[in-house]
C-alpha cells in the first residue's frame, strides 16, 4: 500500500521529472509532445479496468464500461495521432 509520506515523495519526484523533461524542448515539438503526454495519461485505462473488474451492481458496471471505453480511446487515439505526427519529422540530410 502506497500511503502517507511515501505517496507524497512519489508525487513530488514525478512532478520534478515531468518538469525536467519538458524544460528544454524546442518549439517545433510542442504539439507532438502535448500529444505524446496525452497518450501517456491513457494509463488511466489500467485504473478503469480495475474499477470495472471490481464492479458489482449494474450501475457500477455500466459506469465502469464507459470508463474503460473512454480510457481505451484516450490510449489508442493518443498513440495513433502522436505516431502520425512524429513519422513526418525528417531531416534533409537523409537521416531519421
Amino acid at each position, binding site marked *: 500500500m502506497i500511503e502517507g509520506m511515501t505517496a507524497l515523495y512519489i508525487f513530488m519526484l514525478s512532478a520534478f*521529472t*515531468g518538469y525536467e523533461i519538458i524544460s528544454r524542448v524546442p518549439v517545433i515539438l510542442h504539439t507532438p509532445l502535448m500529444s505524446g503526454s*496525452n497518450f501517456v495519461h491513457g494509463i488511466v485505462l489500467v485504473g478503469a479496468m480495475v474499477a470495472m473488474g471490481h464492479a458489482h451492481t449494474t450501475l457500477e458496471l455500466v459506469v465502469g464500461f464507459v470508463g474503460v471505453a473512454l480510457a481505451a480511446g484516450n490510449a489508442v487515439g493518443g498513440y495513433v495521432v502522436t505516431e502520425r505526427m512524429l513519422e513526418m519529422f525528417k531531416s534533409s540530410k537523409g537521416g531519421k
Partner: protein
Amino acid sequence: MMENIIEISYFIAAILFILGLKKMSSPVTARGGIVWAGIGMLVATLITFLHPGMGNYLLMTVAIFVGGVAALWSGKKVAITDMPQMIALYNGMGGGAAGAIAAVELLRGEFHSQTFLTLAVLGALIGSVSFSGSLIAFAKLQGWLRRPMRFPGQQIFNIFVFLAAAAFGALLVTRGEFSGTIILIFFVTALAYGLLMALPIGGADMPVVISLFNALTGLAVAFEGFVLNNAAMIIAGTVVGSAGTLLTQLMARAMNRSIGNVLFSSFGSSDGGAADNVEGSMKPIDAADAGIMMAYAERVIIIPGYGMAVAQAQHKVWELAELLISRGVNVKFAIHPVAGRMPGHMNVLLAEANVPYDLLYDLDEINAAFPQTDVSLVIGANDVVNPSARTNPDSPIYGMPILNADMSHNVIVIKRGQGKGFSGVENALFFGDNTRMLYGDGQAMAGELIAAIKEL
C-alpha cells in the same frame, strides 16, 4: 507472487513512459519515444488482466475494443490540419475515464481512509471538468461552435457553479455515506463547470486551453492512481500533470498571453479600432514579376501561416522552395511560434509536405537574418508579421513577438483579399514601400510562381 509480477510490470511501464517522453523532446529521437511509451502501455494493460479478484472480463474486452477501434479509426482518418481537436477529444476521454473510476469507487463506497476519499473526489472534479471542457474545445476547433459564448456576469456565474461542484464534493467527503443523488449532482455540476469554463474562450486561444486540460487530466489520473494504489497511474499522471503545466506556460508565453488572461478575459471582443491609422497603400504585383524577384535573389525567407495550411498549399510551397534551391538560392522557412493552430503545428504541417526540419527556423534564430534577406515571401500569415506589434503601443497586438519581415529588402505577400488578420488589426507590413501584394489563393499562386520561375 502474482502481485509482485504486476507491480514490477507497472514499474517497467512507468520507466518506459518517462524515457519515452524524454526521447520525444528531441526531433532526432522523437519517433522512438512514442514506441517506447507504447510498449509501456501495452505491458501495463495486458498485465492488468491478471489482477486478482477481478471479474467482468468479457465486457471489459468489449469496452476496450469499442473505445480502441473508434479511436484507431478516427485517429488514422483525421487530416493533419485537424489534429489539435483530436488531441482535445482523446484528452477529454481520459478525463472522463478518471471521472468514471471515481464514480465506480464512490458507488462502491469502500475507502481505506478519508485521504483516499478526498483524492477520489478531487480527481473526479478535475477529470469531469477536463472531459466536458475538452469536448467544447473539440467542437470549437472542429467548427461546430463558431462564436465564443459570453453573457453578462458570466465569470461570477461560473465561479458560483464551481463552488457548487466543490460544495457537493465536500459533502461527499465529509458525510462518509454516499447517496446516489449527491454523487449525481456532484458530477453534473462539475461537468457543467467544464462547459462554462471553455465556452467563452476564442478559437485562437484553444491550444493553450487544450494543453491545460491535458495537464488537468494527468493530475486527475494521478489522484485516482492513489485511490487505486496503482503506482503506474500515479507516476505517469503526475509526470503529465507537471509537464503539461509547463508546456501550457510555454505556449502561452509564445503567444504573449498569460494563462489567466486566456481563461478569464475576452480577447477580440473589443474591436481595437483606435490603432488603424496606417499610411500608404497596398501595391499589387503579378506572379511573373514576383517569380523573377525570387529566382534572382540570393536569400529568400518563406513565412508560412495558417492560411497556407487551409489552402493546402504546403506541398506547392515546398516545390517552389526546392526549385529555388536548385537555382542556388538560399531558402529558409521562418516559423512563428503560433504560426499554426498551436505551437509546433506549422512544423508538423510542413513536415507532412516533406520539408526537412533543418530548413525551419524559430523566431529567435531567424529575426537577425531579415535585414540581409532579399525577398521575404509571406503566405497565409498576417498578425505574426505585423510590425505594429513592435512600433505602435496603441495596437492590440503590441508586444507580441513577431517575425521582422518588414526589415528585408523586399516582401511579397500572398493573400486572398485585402482583409484583416485574426486580431482584426490592419497590417502595416502590407502598406510598406518594400511590400508587394500577390492576390490569390495560396496554392494557385504558389503554382503560378513555380511556372513563372520555370520559364526563366
